[in-house]
């Protein structure tokens, strides 16, 4: 999985931004969503990302994992990532 052709990502103090330049839509991301995109950019397997974030954020529950999985699904649904 990687960012789609027309999607650009930039880190910001508050997290990051995704910019889909074809539709000219901008998505602002919080730190957790930013961490997901960073994992995608570094080539992590989709299935591994929720668990990696859980570990990274020292989350003992399931919140981070669930949010990460939901966010990845949303990225797919909006065409912001591709295989």
């Amino acid at each position: 999985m990687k960012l789609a052709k027309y999607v650009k990502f930039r880190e910001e103090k508050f997290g990051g931004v995704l910019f889909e330049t074809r539709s000219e839509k901008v998505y602002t991301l919080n730190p957790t969503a930013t961490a997901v995109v960073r994992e995608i950019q570094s080539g992590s397997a989709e299935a591994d990302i929720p668990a990696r974030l859980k570990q990274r954020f020292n989350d003992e529950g399931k919140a981070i994992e669930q949010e990460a999985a939901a966010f990845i699904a949303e990225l797919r649904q909006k065409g912001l990532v591709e295989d």
Partner: protein
Amino acid sequence: MAVSANAPAAGSGVPATTPAATESGDLGAPLYIAWQVTNECNLACLHCIEESGPGKAFHDELNDEQVFRVLEQTMDLEVPYLSFSGGEPMVHPRFFDMVEYVCGRNGQLKIETNGHYLTPENCARLKELGVKAVQVSLDGASRETFNRMRVRGDFDLALQGVRNLHAAGVPIEINYSPTSFNVHEIGIAVDLAAELGAYSFYTGRTMYTGNAVKTWHRMAPSEEQYGPFFEVLHAKVDEYRGRMRVYFHEMGLLEELRYRLHHPAALLIVLPNGLVKLINALPFVCGDLRRQSLAEIWGHFQRAWQDPRVAKFVDDLAQDPRKTATLHQWVHL
């Protein structure tokens, strides 16, 4: 989990805005730089907001070294999206070198052109370099209207240019400026854009500035004409949904500027001489790339919007809409 920069709320959906609607306050750099690379143009269009034309290059346009220094800063700051316009950007002697630099550093670049230099060879080069899109101005769906508006222009040449883009596989956007004598062609123009393979069609109200100040009496659409114009566009949005984006600004300039006073967009307008404007529709300059870095100017951008002269100009515009005639009398903040 993806949220607005100003309203973090875990678990929300991913809200989408546009660069023009994304507030700039929390961002480390612009999201979009609209760069008028030269004021020189092969055409002398009746409505040109930049007063471009043959022999109209500024005497102090950025030299090669300055141009590439600005491009380098832009890429270093990870500005994700740039456009080159003019004047006519393709007459700039280093045009393709500039395109190559931006695309070579993975920048997303749009070219805004009148389409007269879109030969098959140039289109193939733009494709090879990887531009994001080329936006061509097609103001009219016929020779009669296009050539009347685009003085020295050739409708058939522009049309062939768009066809050459399509043949080369370059994504196409069409821009359309309404006038009293082409406004009735809007439906046909949208259909033509789709037939030519465009993925976006843009239009909006023609502004009273630049060349339009001199030609307003013979080219400005009336409110009676704008009514059916926007009605057709609303219908075309639905007709082409999923195939081509039909995008238009129905809002008047004053409403737009009043909104911007409180929500400056995350974009900078760079003039051919390196001056940086707050927004095209205001005369205010917030920096000079010949003397300041892009990062410095971005740091000043928010404060510049809060300068009382900006709000006063917008208030005055409500009383006298013709103040836009002074947009080229730059005011340094």
